[in-house]
Protein backbone atom coordinates (compact mmCIF):
# COMPACT_ATOMS: atom_id res chain seq x y z
CA UNK A 1 0.00 0.00 0.00
CA UNK A 2 1.36 3.32 -0.99
CA UNK A 3 -0.07 6.21 0.98
CA UNK A 4 2.01 8.72 -0.93
CA UNK A 5 -0.58 8.67 -3.76
CA UNK A 6 -2.87 10.53 -1.37
CA UNK A 7 -0.40 13.39 -1.12
CA UNK A 8 0.33 13.38 -4.83
CA UNK A 9 -3.37 13.53 -5.67
CA UNK A 10 -4.47 15.89 -2.92
CA UNK A 11 -5.17 18.58 -5.49
CA UNK A 12 -7.43 16.32 -7.55
CA UNK A 13 -9.30 15.20 -4.43
CA UNK A 14 -9.72 18.81 -3.35
CA UNK A 15 -11.14 19.54 -6.79
CA UNK A 16 -13.54 16.61 -6.30
CA UNK A 17 -14.53 17.96 -2.91
CA UNK A 18 -15.36 21.28 -4.53
CA UNK A 19 -17.55 19.52 -7.11
CA UNK A 20 -19.37 17.57 -4.36
CA UNK A 21 -19.88 20.84 -2.50
CA UNK A 22 -21.26 22.51 -5.65
CA UNK A 23 -23.60 19.66 -6.52
CA UNK A 24 -24.82 19.46 -2.91
CA UNK A 25 -25.30 23.20 -2.46
CA UNK A 26 -27.17 23.65 -5.74
CA UNK A 27 -29.29 20.55 -5.14
CA UNK A 28 -30.08 21.72 -1.60
CA UNK A 29 -31.18 25.11 -2.90
CA UNK A 30 -33.42 23.44 -5.47
CA UNK A 31 -34.76 21.03 -2.84
CA UNK A 32 -35.59 23.87 -0.43
CA UNK A 33 -37.40 25.94 -3.05
CA UNK A 34 -39.40 22.98 -4.41
CA UNK A 35 -39.89 21.62 -0.89
CA UNK A 36 -41.45 24.83 0.42
CA UNK A 37 -43.78 24.99 -2.59
CA UNK A 38 -44.83 21.36 -2.23
CA UNK A 39 -45.24 21.71 1.56
CA UNK A 40 -47.58 24.65 0.90
CA UNK A 41 -49.60 22.40 -1.41
CA UNK A 42 -49.65 19.71 1.26
CA UNK A 43 -51.32 22.03 3.82
CA UNK A 44 -53.47 23.95 1.32
CA UNK A 45 -57.20 24.29 2.05
CA UNK A 46 -58.04 22.76 -1.36
CA UNK A 47 -58.16 18.94 -1.37
CA UNK A 48 -57.06 18.85 -5.02
CA UNK A 49 -53.86 20.78 -4.25
CA UNK A 50 -53.23 18.60 -1.22
CA UNK A 51 -53.54 15.48 -3.37
CA UNK A 52 -51.09 16.85 -5.94
CA UNK A 53 -48.62 17.56 -3.16
CA UNK A 54 -49.03 14.10 -1.68
CA UNK A 55 -48.61 12.42 -5.07
CA UNK A 56 -45.39 14.40 -5.70
CA UNK A 57 -43.90 13.36 -2.36
CA UNK A 58 -44.88 9.71 -2.51
CA UNK A 59 -43.80 9.34 -6.13
CA UNK A 60 -40.35 10.84 -5.71
CA UNK A 61 -39.33 9.43 -2.37
CA UNK A 62 -40.35 5.89 -3.26
CA UNK A 63 -38.26 5.56 -6.41
CA UNK A 64 -34.52 5.02 -5.86
CA UNK A 65 -32.48 8.15 -6.49
CA UNK A 66 -30.17 6.18 -8.78
CA UNK A 67 -33.12 5.24 -11.01
CA UNK A 68 -34.15 8.91 -11.24
CA UNK A 69 -30.57 9.92 -12.03
CA UNK A 70 -30.18 7.24 -14.72
CA UNK A 71 -33.51 8.29 -16.17
CA UNK A 72 -32.30 11.87 -16.62
CA UNK A 73 -28.86 10.89 -17.91
CA UNK A 74 -29.51 7.78 -20.01
CA UNK A 75 -33.22 7.81 -20.88
CA UNK A 76 -33.89 11.48 -21.66
CA UNK A 77 -31.36 11.66 -24.53
CA UNK A 78 -33.36 9.00 -26.38
CA UNK A 79 -36.29 11.42 -26.47
CA UNK A 80 -34.02 14.23 -27.56
CA UNK A 81 -33.25 15.90 -24.22
CA UNK A 82 -29.54 15.86 -23.58
CA UNK A 83 -28.38 17.31 -20.27
CA UNK A 84 -24.89 17.71 -18.91
CA UNK A 85 -23.96 15.07 -16.28
CA UNK A 86 -23.46 17.75 -13.62
CA UNK A 87 -26.89 19.24 -14.37
CA UNK A 88 -28.49 15.79 -14.27
CA UNK A 89 -26.88 15.21 -10.88
CA UNK A 90 -28.12 18.50 -9.42
CA UNK A 91 -31.63 18.01 -10.83
CA UNK A 92 -32.04 14.40 -9.73
CA UNK A 93 -30.60 15.03 -6.28
CA UNK A 94 -32.55 18.29 -5.79
CA UNK A 95 -35.91 16.98 -6.96
CA UNK A 96 -35.55 13.72 -5.03
CA UNK A 97 -34.56 15.55 -1.83
CA UNK A 98 -37.37 18.11 -2.23
CA UNK A 99 -39.85 15.34 -1.34
CA UNK A 100 -38.10 14.89 2.00
CA UNK A 101 -37.88 18.66 2.57
CA UNK A 102 -41.60 19.02 1.85
CA UNK A 103 -42.35 16.23 4.30
CA UNK A 104 -40.17 17.78 7.00
CA UNK A 105 -41.83 21.19 6.61
CA UNK A 106 -45.33 19.71 6.47
CA UNK A 107 -44.82 17.73 9.65
CA UNK A 108 -43.32 20.85 11.27
CA UNK A 109 -46.43 22.88 10.43
CA UNK A 110 -48.69 20.03 11.54
CA UNK A 111 -46.85 19.90 14.87
CA UNK A 112 -47.90 23.47 15.70
CA UNK A 113 -51.22 23.27 17.59
CA UNK A 114 -54.17 24.77 15.67
CA UNK A 115 -54.86 26.90 18.74
CA UNK A 116 -51.80 28.97 17.80
CA UNK A 117 -53.30 29.94 14.45
CA UNK A 118 -56.68 30.51 16.08
CA UNK A 119 -55.17 32.78 18.71
CA UNK A 120 -53.60 34.88 15.96
CA UNK A 121 -56.77 34.99 13.87
CA UNK A 122 -58.82 35.87 16.96
CA UNK A 123 -56.66 38.91 17.56
CA UNK A 124 -57.54 40.25 14.11
CA UNK A 125 -54.55 39.04 12.09
CA UNK A 126 -55.18 37.78 8.58
CA UNK A 127 -54.36 34.17 7.73
CA UNK A 128 -51.07 35.04 6.03
CA UNK A 129 -49.87 37.26 8.89
CA UNK A 130 -50.76 34.67 11.52
CA UNK A 131 -48.95 31.98 9.53
CA UNK A 132 -45.87 34.16 9.07
CA UNK A 133 -45.56 35.53 12.61
CA UNK A 134 -46.93 32.70 14.69
CA UNK A 135 -47.13 29.33 12.96
CA UNK A 136 -44.08 29.29 10.66
CA UNK A 137 -41.48 30.38 13.26
CA UNK A 138 -42.61 27.50 15.45
CA UNK A 139 -42.81 25.12 12.49
CA UNK A 140 -39.25 26.00 11.43
CA UNK A 141 -37.93 25.17 14.88
CA UNK A 142 -39.59 21.76 14.64
CA UNK A 143 -38.30 21.35 11.09
CA UNK A 144 -34.61 21.86 11.85
CA UNK A 145 -33.80 18.31 13.04
CA UNK A 146 -35.41 16.50 10.06
CA UNK A 147 -34.06 19.09 7.62
CA UNK A 148 -30.60 18.61 9.10
CA UNK A 149 -30.86 14.88 8.51
CA UNK A 150 -32.09 15.47 4.99
CA UNK A 151 -29.13 17.75 4.28
CA UNK A 152 -26.65 15.15 5.55
CA UNK A 153 -28.33 12.50 3.42
CA UNK A 154 -28.17 14.80 0.43
CA UNK A 155 -24.41 15.28 0.81
CA UNK A 156 -23.89 11.54 1.09
CA UNK A 157 -26.32 10.75 -1.74
CA UNK A 158 -24.44 13.18 -3.98
CA UNK A 159 -21.79 10.45 -4.37
CA UNK A 160 -24.20 8.78 -6.79
CA UNK A 161 -23.39 11.43 -9.41
CA UNK A 162 -20.04 9.69 -9.84
CA UNK A 163 -21.97 6.93 -11.64
CA UNK A 164 -22.73 9.31 -14.50
CA UNK A 165 -19.06 10.34 -14.78
CA UNK A 166 -19.10 13.47 -12.65
CA UNK A 167 -15.72 13.82 -10.96
CA UNK A 168 -16.93 14.51 -7.46
CA UNK A 169 -15.10 13.11 -4.43
CA UNK A 170 -16.05 9.51 -5.11
CA UNK A 171 -15.63 9.82 -8.87
CA UNK A 172 -12.12 11.24 -8.44
CA UNK A 173 -11.10 8.64 -5.85
CA UNK A 174 -12.41 5.83 -8.00
CA UNK A 175 -10.60 7.09 -11.08
CA UNK A 176 -7.29 7.64 -9.31
CA UNK A 177 -7.62 4.34 -7.47
CA UNK A 178 -8.07 2.51 -10.75
CA UNK A 179 -5.07 4.27 -12.28
CA UNK A 180 -2.69 3.64 -9.38
CA UNK A 181 -4.22 0.41 -8.07
CA UNK A 182 -4.08 2.12 -4.68
CA UNK A 183 -7.76 1.83 -3.81
CA UNK A 184 -7.32 1.74 -0.04
CA UNK A 185 -5.57 5.10 0.32
CA UNK A 186 -7.82 6.72 -2.29
CA UNK A 187 -11.07 5.58 -0.68
CA UNK A 188 -9.80 6.48 2.78
CA UNK A 189 -9.06 9.88 1.30
CA UNK A 190 -12.58 10.04 -0.12
CA UNK A 191 -14.08 9.14 3.26
CA UNK A 192 -12.06 11.93 4.89
CA UNK A 193 -13.27 14.39 2.23
CA UNK A 194 -16.92 13.47 2.95
CA UNK A 195 -16.35 13.88 6.67
CA UNK A 196 -14.90 17.34 6.02
CA UNK A 197 -18.31 18.24 4.59
CA UNK A 198 -20.66 16.25 6.81
CA UNK A 199 -19.20 16.73 10.29
CA UNK A 200 -19.37 20.56 10.26
CA UNK A 201 -22.91 20.28 8.82
CA UNK A 202 -23.96 17.96 11.63
CA UNK A 203 -22.34 20.32 14.14
CA UNK A 204 -24.13 23.35 12.69
CA UNK A 205 -27.47 21.53 12.76
CA UNK A 206 -26.95 20.68 16.43
CA UNK A 207 -26.19 24.30 17.20
CA UNK A 208 -29.29 25.51 15.36
CA UNK A 209 -31.42 22.92 17.09
CA UNK A 210 -30.25 24.16 20.49
CA UNK A 211 -30.77 27.77 19.55
CA UNK A 212 -34.36 27.25 18.43
CA UNK A 213 -35.28 24.80 21.15
CA UNK A 214 -37.90 26.74 23.04
Amino acid at each position, binding site marked *: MDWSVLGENAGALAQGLLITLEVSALALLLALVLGVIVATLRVAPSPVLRRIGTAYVEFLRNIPLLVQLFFLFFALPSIGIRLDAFVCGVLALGVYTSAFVAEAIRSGIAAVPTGQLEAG*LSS*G*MGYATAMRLIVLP*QAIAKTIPPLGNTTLNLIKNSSLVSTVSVLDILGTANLLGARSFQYVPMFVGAAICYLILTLPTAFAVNRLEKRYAR
Partner: protein
Amino acid sequence: MPPPVAIAFSGVQKWFGTNHVLVDIDLTIATGEVVVVIGPSGSGKSTLIRCINGLEAVQQGTVVVGGKRLTATGGELAAIRREVGMVFQAFHLYPHKTVLENITLAPITVKRVLRDQAEREARALLERVDLPEKADAYPAQLSGGQQQRVAIARALAMQPKVLLFDEPTSALDPEMIAEVLDVMKALAHTGITMVVVTHEMGFAREVGDRVIFMDAGRIVEQATPQQFFSAPGNPRAQLFLSKILAH
Protein backbone atom coordinates in the same frame (compact mmCIF):
# COMPACT_ATOMS: atom_id res chain seq x y z
CA MET B 1 -73.08 55.54 21.92
CA PRO B 2 -72.26 51.88 21.28
CA PRO B 3 -75.09 49.92 19.66
CA PRO B 4 -77.30 48.48 22.40
CA VAL B 5 -77.08 45.06 20.80
CA ALA B 6 -73.58 43.63 20.88
CA ILE B 7 -74.23 40.15 19.49
CA ALA B 8 -77.26 38.73 17.72
CA PHE B 9 -77.83 35.16 16.50
CA SER B 10 -80.94 34.63 14.43
CA GLY B 11 -82.10 31.30 13.11
CA VAL B 12 -78.60 29.84 13.31
CA GLN B 13 -78.02 26.22 12.34
CA LYS B 14 -74.66 24.54 12.22
CA TRP B 15 -73.63 21.04 11.29
CA PHE B 16 -70.30 19.21 11.51
CA GLY B 17 -70.87 16.67 8.77
CA THR B 18 -74.20 15.12 9.70
CA ASN B 19 -73.88 16.17 13.34
CA HIS B 20 -76.34 19.04 13.97
CA VAL B 21 -74.39 20.98 16.61
CA LEU B 22 -76.28 24.31 16.75
CA VAL B 23 -80.05 24.05 16.43
CA ASP B 24 -82.38 27.05 15.99
CA ILE B 25 -80.20 29.48 17.88
CA ASP B 26 -81.82 32.87 18.47
CA LEU B 27 -79.88 34.91 20.95
CA THR B 28 -79.40 38.61 21.59
CA ILE B 29 -76.70 39.88 23.90
CA ALA B 30 -76.72 43.51 24.95
CA THR B 31 -73.66 45.73 25.09
CA GLY B 32 -72.03 45.40 28.49
CA GLU B 33 -73.88 42.23 29.34
CA VAL B 34 -72.08 39.32 31.01
CA VAL B 35 -73.51 36.05 29.75
CA VAL B 36 -72.51 32.71 31.20
CA VAL B 37 -72.96 29.65 29.00
CA ILE B 38 -73.24 26.26 30.67
CA GLY B 39 -74.26 22.80 29.57
CA PRO B 40 -73.03 19.23 29.30
CA SER B 41 -69.98 18.25 27.29
CA GLY B 42 -70.67 18.23 23.56
CA SER B 43 -73.76 20.43 23.87
CA GLY B 44 -72.27 23.07 21.55
CA LYS B 45 -71.00 25.74 23.97
CA SER B 46 -67.59 26.13 22.34
CA THR B 47 -69.09 26.06 18.88
CA LEU B 48 -71.56 28.77 19.88
CA ILE B 49 -68.90 31.22 21.03
CA ARG B 50 -66.53 30.33 18.20
CA CYS B 51 -69.27 31.49 15.82
CA ILE B 52 -69.13 34.93 17.43
CA ASN B 53 -65.61 35.57 16.09
CA GLY B 54 -65.95 33.45 12.99
CA LEU B 55 -63.59 30.64 14.01
CA GLU B 56 -66.56 28.52 12.97
CA ALA B 57 -68.91 29.42 10.13
CA VAL B 58 -72.64 28.78 10.33
CA GLN B 59 -74.56 27.13 7.51
CA GLN B 60 -77.88 28.84 8.11
CA GLY B 61 -79.03 32.01 9.81
CA THR B 62 -76.98 35.06 10.72
CA VAL B 63 -74.56 36.13 13.40
CA VAL B 64 -74.22 39.89 13.79
CA VAL B 65 -71.52 41.39 16.00
CA GLY B 66 -71.33 45.13 16.64
CA GLY B 67 -73.80 45.68 13.80
CA LYS B 68 -71.66 43.77 11.29
CA ARG B 69 -72.70 40.44 9.86
CA LEU B 70 -70.11 37.69 10.06
CA THR B 71 -69.47 36.45 6.58
CA ALA B 72 -66.60 34.26 5.56
CA THR B 73 -64.64 36.91 3.66
CA GLY B 74 -61.12 37.55 4.93
CA GLY B 75 -60.77 41.31 5.37
CA GLU B 76 -64.13 42.00 6.99
CA LEU B 77 -63.78 39.01 9.24
CA ALA B 78 -60.42 40.27 10.49
CA ALA B 79 -61.99 43.69 11.13
CA ILE B 80 -64.70 42.14 13.31
CA ARG B 81 -62.15 39.99 15.12
CA ARG B 82 -60.24 43.11 16.12
CA GLU B 83 -63.23 44.05 18.25
CA VAL B 84 -63.73 40.58 19.71
CA GLY B 85 -61.08 39.11 21.99
CA MET B 86 -60.90 35.44 22.83
CA VAL B 87 -59.45 33.56 25.79
CA PHE B 88 -58.99 29.82 25.34
CA GLN B 89 -59.06 26.93 27.75
CA ALA B 90 -55.47 26.01 26.81
CA PHE B 91 -54.21 29.66 26.79
CA HIS B 92 -52.48 29.38 23.39
CA LEU B 93 -49.82 31.92 24.26
CA TYR B 94 -47.12 32.16 21.59
CA PRO B 95 -44.29 30.05 23.03
CA HIS B 96 -41.57 31.70 20.93
CA LYS B 97 -42.40 35.18 22.18
CA THR B 98 -42.00 36.86 25.55
CA VAL B 99 -45.00 37.89 27.60
CA LEU B 100 -44.60 41.49 26.43
CA GLU B 101 -44.32 40.40 22.78
CA ASN B 102 -47.37 38.18 23.16
CA ILE B 103 -49.37 41.21 24.23
CA THR B 104 -47.97 43.73 21.75
CA LEU B 105 -47.91 41.54 18.63
CA ALA B 106 -51.48 42.19 17.46
CA PRO B 107 -51.58 45.91 18.32
CA ILE B 108 -48.31 46.46 16.43
CA THR B 109 -49.03 44.31 13.38
CA VAL B 110 -52.78 44.73 13.08
CA LYS B 111 -53.49 48.17 14.48
CA ARG B 112 -50.10 49.70 13.59
CA VAL B 113 -49.62 51.03 17.10
CA LEU B 114 -46.04 52.25 17.61
CA ARG B 115 -43.88 49.81 19.56
CA ASP B 116 -43.20 52.26 22.41
CA GLN B 117 -46.84 52.95 22.95
CA ALA B 118 -47.82 49.29 22.56
CA GLU B 119 -45.27 48.31 25.19
CA ARG B 120 -46.43 51.01 27.57
CA GLU B 121 -50.00 49.80 27.22
CA ALA B 122 -48.90 46.18 27.59
CA ARG B 123 -47.13 46.97 30.86
CA ALA B 124 -50.25 48.72 32.13
CA LEU B 125 -52.27 45.62 31.24
CA LEU B 126 -49.75 43.38 33.02
CA GLU B 127 -50.20 45.63 36.04
CA ARG B 128 -53.95 45.06 35.76
CA VAL B 129 -53.63 41.27 35.71
CA ASP B 130 -51.10 41.52 38.53
CA LEU B 131 -48.05 40.27 36.62
CA PRO B 132 -45.90 43.36 36.06
CA GLU B 133 -42.67 41.47 36.79
CA LYS B 134 -43.23 38.86 34.07
CA ALA B 135 -42.93 41.11 31.01
CA ASP B 136 -39.72 39.49 29.80
CA ALA B 137 -40.53 35.91 30.74
CA TYR B 138 -41.46 33.26 28.19
CA PRO B 139 -44.83 31.49 28.54
CA ALA B 140 -43.15 28.19 29.45
CA GLN B 141 -41.71 29.88 32.54
CA LEU B 142 -45.16 30.77 33.91
CA SER B 143 -47.71 28.78 35.87
CA GLY B 144 -51.04 27.97 34.25
CA GLY B 145 -52.83 30.72 36.14
CA GLN B 146 -50.19 33.24 35.15
CA GLN B 147 -50.36 32.16 31.51
CA GLN B 148 -54.12 32.58 31.48
CA ARG B 149 -53.81 36.06 32.97
CA VAL B 150 -51.31 36.96 30.25
CA ALA B 151 -53.77 35.59 27.69
CA ILE B 152 -56.43 37.90 29.10
CA ALA B 153 -54.03 40.84 28.90
CA ARG B 154 -53.23 39.86 25.30
CA ALA B 155 -56.93 39.84 24.41
CA LEU B 156 -57.44 43.22 26.12
CA ALA B 157 -54.54 44.80 24.24
CA MET B 158 -56.71 45.13 21.15
CA GLN B 159 -59.26 47.04 23.24
CA PRO B 160 -62.08 44.75 22.18
CA LYS B 161 -65.74 45.53 22.77
CA VAL B 162 -66.53 41.86 23.30
CA LEU B 163 -64.54 39.22 25.17
CA LEU B 164 -65.16 35.51 24.68
CA PHE B 165 -63.97 32.97 27.24
CA ASP B 166 -64.03 29.24 26.52
CA GLU B 167 -63.65 27.43 29.85
CA PRO B 168 -60.79 29.70 30.93
CA THR B 169 -60.21 27.92 34.23
CA SER B 170 -60.81 24.29 33.25
CA ALA B 171 -57.16 23.57 32.56
CA LEU B 172 -55.98 25.10 35.82
CA ASP B 173 -55.01 23.56 39.13
CA PRO B 174 -57.62 24.45 41.76
CA GLU B 175 -55.37 26.89 43.59
CA MET B 176 -54.95 29.00 40.45
CA ILE B 177 -58.59 29.28 39.50
CA ALA B 178 -59.34 32.14 41.87
CA GLU B 179 -56.59 34.42 40.53
CA VAL B 180 -58.01 34.13 37.02
CA LEU B 181 -61.62 34.50 38.13
CA ASP B 182 -60.69 37.63 40.10
CA VAL B 183 -59.32 39.25 36.95
CA MET B 184 -62.46 38.25 35.04
CA LYS B 185 -64.74 39.59 37.74
CA ALA B 186 -62.94 42.91 37.70
CA LEU B 187 -63.39 43.00 33.92
CA ALA B 188 -67.09 42.29 34.20
CA HIS B 189 -67.52 45.58 36.00
CA THR B 190 -65.86 47.63 33.25
CA GLY B 191 -68.81 47.50 30.85
CA ILE B 192 -67.17 45.21 28.32
CA THR B 193 -69.51 42.58 26.84
CA MET B 194 -68.51 39.11 28.02
CA VAL B 195 -69.62 35.68 26.91
CA VAL B 196 -68.16 33.08 29.23
CA VAL B 197 -68.36 29.32 28.91
CA THR B 198 -67.65 28.11 32.43
CA HIS B 199 -68.87 25.81 35.13
CA GLU B 200 -67.72 28.21 37.84
CA MET B 201 -71.06 28.84 39.48
CA GLY B 202 -69.61 31.37 41.90
CA PHE B 203 -68.52 33.52 38.98
CA ALA B 204 -71.94 33.23 37.32
CA ARG B 205 -73.72 34.19 40.55
CA GLU B 206 -71.46 37.09 41.35
CA VAL B 207 -71.11 38.90 38.02
CA GLY B 208 -73.33 37.11 35.50
CA ASP B 209 -76.30 39.02 34.11
CA ARG B 210 -77.73 35.95 32.44
CA VAL B 211 -77.14 32.22 32.36
CA ILE B 212 -77.71 30.27 29.18
CA PHE B 213 -78.09 26.53 29.43
CA MET B 214 -77.38 24.49 26.31
CA ASP B 215 -78.25 20.90 25.59
CA ALA B 216 -77.75 18.97 22.35
CA GLY B 217 -77.11 22.14 20.33
CA ARG B 218 -80.13 24.06 21.63
CA ILE B 219 -80.46 26.85 24.12
CA VAL B 220 -82.98 25.22 26.42
CA GLU B 221 -83.04 27.72 29.24
CA GLN B 222 -82.13 31.36 29.83
CA ALA B 223 -82.49 33.04 33.19
CA THR B 224 -80.80 35.36 35.65
CA PRO B 225 -78.27 33.47 37.77
CA GLN B 226 -80.53 33.83 40.81
CA GLN B 227 -83.48 32.25 39.03
CA PHE B 228 -81.39 29.64 37.32
CA PHE B 229 -79.60 28.35 40.38
CA SER B 230 -82.63 28.41 42.67
CA ALA B 231 -85.18 26.88 40.33
CA PRO B 232 -84.18 25.89 36.82
CA GLY B 233 -87.28 25.12 34.79
CA ASN B 234 -85.79 22.66 32.38
CA PRO B 235 -85.43 19.11 33.72
CA ARG B 236 -82.10 18.62 31.96
CA ALA B 237 -80.80 21.80 33.54
CA GLN B 238 -81.98 20.52 36.92
CA LEU B 239 -80.15 17.25 36.38
CA PHE B 240 -77.02 19.02 35.19
CA LEU B 241 -77.05 21.42 38.15
CA SER B 242 -77.52 18.64 40.67
CA LYS B 243 -74.50 16.90 39.16
CA ILE B 244 -72.10 19.83 39.20
CA LEU B 245 -73.26 21.09 42.57
CA ALA B 246 -72.74 17.62 44.02
CA HIS B 247 -68.98 18.17 43.99
